[in-house]
């Protein structure tokens, strides 16, 4: 990639979509319009996501969820937000006043900043000016998101410390440890994307996923999938897991584990300061989902195969819709996880991050680098196959010769019961037959009065 000189519009030669060189030429008022646009998008997404989460979790728990204010209860989160603003703002006596005040501000500012490099779409016409549908792009755009999330955690850590109380402090400490552990895994999962796309700028990563490259394997010609989530599946999985850890969401919400730490870092916060933390958490969710869509799910692009029956699907303002749909689907996964999984124990959580995610990621990057180097070498296919076979053989040999833990033989249940020492906790008899309760008998009798055919129809 060669940076074009300033003042020169350089579209992607294949797709005609924005590249890095297209940014930095907007007039100031257009930048302002875009900034306001991103701000509004994030705030609306936050309000929507809170409602969305409550409705989806309610649906999973077979209850209606908020349905009073506005159509489908859509205005519920707006009402909640207004209520929060009018609540009493409490400053704890032992709080460090300045730090207590700036902590939520840091969190929120960083959350908003991270979204500035998110690509929403291709070139559009805004008030007669042709401009990319993206606030800005820099050569290290993805690293900006990483930096912002790292800085955003300062808000949580400092908020926990400045509250001057034990539970928030523990929440802050947990958050610091969590960030340091899971940001490493997250950063490593970007590496495979950078290696494949050849760039760190978000607009060009989206371009790199526009078309699959042709692959020649054993004489078969086929097109590799263009979206990175298939091409780089391990990275996608690790990113998804560490993104949940990075945003402090269930099952990794240990900094605010309410059964252990009351409310975690935000125990002492109330009113608008609490609202800012809340806002930052939901914006972070939207950001990691947006980044996931950008890096792995083709960005704002609808699948290329759709272009055959709708040629204009990836032009104009439509991609904004595809991007939003992808983000909402990813947010659904966040909510799904929260509705399904219990919180992890702290040591298990740390062990998972350090001993599973990071080593797996390193091995995967090494493998990918090996594949890429083999592809670039100008050697016959048979020789490439030999190299690949050698690597696979070494791995298989290692797996076979790896010392295994001796597994203790599992005794049958009768023997386990017989081996228990005298005076053990009483067990029900193994052949226990629970008698049918008389109430259940009555209920069945009542039900039998209904004709049997109608039961089958239902």
């Amino acid at each position: 990639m060669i940076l074009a000189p300033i003042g020169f519009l350089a579209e992607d030669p294949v797709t005609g979509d924005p590249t890095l060189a297209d940014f930095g030429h907007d007039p100031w008022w257009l930048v302002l319009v875009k900034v306001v646009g991103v701000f509004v998008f994030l705030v609306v997404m936050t309000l929507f996501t809170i409602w969305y989460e409550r409705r989806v979790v309610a649906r999973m728990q077979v209850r209606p969820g908020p349905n009073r204010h506005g159509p489908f209860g859509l205005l519920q989160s707006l009402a909640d937000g207004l209520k929060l603003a009018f609540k009493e703002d409490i400053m704890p006596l032992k709080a460090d006043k300045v730090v207590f005040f700036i902590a939520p501000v840091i969190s929120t500012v960083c959350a908003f900043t991270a979204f500035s490099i998110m690509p929403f779409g291709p070139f559009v016409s805004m008030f007669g000016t042709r401009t990319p549908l993206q606030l800005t792009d820099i050569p290290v755009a993805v690293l900006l998101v990483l930096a912002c999330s790292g800085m955003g955690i300062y808000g949580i850590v400092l908020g926990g410390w400045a509250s001057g109380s034990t539970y928030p402090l523990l929440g802050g400490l947990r958050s610091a440890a969590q960030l340091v552990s899971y940001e490493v895994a997250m950063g490593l999962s970007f590496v495979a994307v950078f290696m494949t796309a050849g760039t760190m700028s978000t607009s060009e990563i989206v371009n790199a996923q526009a078309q699959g490259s042709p692959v020649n394997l054993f004489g078969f010609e086929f097109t590799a999938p263009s979206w990175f989530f298939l091409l780089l599946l391990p990275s996608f999985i690790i990113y998804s897991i560490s993104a949940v850890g990075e945003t402090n969401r269930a099952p990794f919400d240990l900094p605010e584990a309410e059964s252990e730490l009351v409310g975690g870092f935000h125990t002492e916060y109330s009113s608008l300061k609490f609202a800012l933390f809340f806002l930052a958490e939901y914006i972070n969710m939207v950001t990691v989902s947006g980044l996931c869509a950008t890096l792995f799910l083709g960005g704002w692009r609808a699948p290329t195969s759709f272009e055959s029956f709708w040629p204009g699907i990836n032009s104009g303002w439509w991609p904004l819709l595809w991007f939003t749909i992808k983000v909402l689907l990813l947010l659904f996964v966040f909510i799904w996880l929260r509705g399904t999984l219990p919180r992890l124990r702290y040591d298990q959580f740390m062990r998972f991050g350090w001993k599973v995610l990071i080593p797996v990621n390193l091995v995967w990057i090494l493998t990918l680098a090996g594949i890429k180097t083999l592809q670039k070498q100008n050697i016959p296919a048979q020789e490439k196959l030999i190299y690949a076979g050698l690597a696979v053989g070494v791995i298989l040999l290692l797996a076979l010769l790896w010392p295994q833990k001796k597994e203790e033989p599992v005794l049958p249940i009768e023997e386990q019961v017989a081996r228990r020492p005298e005076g053990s906790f009483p067990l029900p008899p193994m052949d226990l037959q629970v008698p049918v309760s008389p109430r259940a008998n009555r209920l069945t009798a009542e039900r039998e009065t209904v004709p049997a055919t109608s039961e089958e129809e239902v």
Partner: protein
Amino acid sequence: MMLSTQVLAAAAEVPTGEKWVFFLLAPLALAGALGMIIARNAVHSALWLVLTMLSLGVFYIVQAGPFIGMVQIIVYTGAIMMLFLFVLMLVGRDASDSVIETLRGQKVVAVLLGLGLAGLLGTGVYQATRGMPSAGLELANANGNVQGIAQLLFGRYVYVFEVTSALLITAAVGAMLLAHRERAKGERVGQAAQMRARFEPGNYAGPKPGPGVFANSTSVATPAKLPDGTPAERSISPILPTRELTSAEIANKPTEGK
């Protein structure tokens, strides 16, 4: 002096935006550095340092080094300072340094030595770089900033890079060795073993009875009664002083016939 004319000539070419960023952030960076030294509270000190590091990161970015700027923010501000904070927070909120000098005249000497070191470093760098031709950032960033750094790191300086990483790994392994505690074989009890021990004979697996259960008093110092009427010693906290119970408190709660 040649240097000052060069600097002035270069300053004339600096774009307005860059100038503004410099004049806005340079005082902030300095204020951060001073605040770090002056602040009494260790956490405040760390926060001032964060301000300086962030300003430096922005300077790098403005001076056409976006990669090093982002790395500065992610690694130094995001990870290393976070670890510092982690330790400082464990020290406790109200731990401030005392301002009493343990060595007489320590502050004055420290200031003088600091100024001397800064002067030495400044003149050293000036002498080393005087008259050195500068190729310019356009050339260095010709193929993109990240690509340029990658080419240098993994091409020309690959051995230096590898030796540095070996040094860092050695440091990490050393730290792990220092912090590691060898455990005897049976010392570590797993979760499954803990659960098995909980249900072993002689250990009551259920929760302890609360004070006053089945008793005639609501006092926490009154033992709960087991179903056979005997007092349950486990129901009273050991820190409570023992007291003699009245006969009304000892009597079983009348439940017959109700």
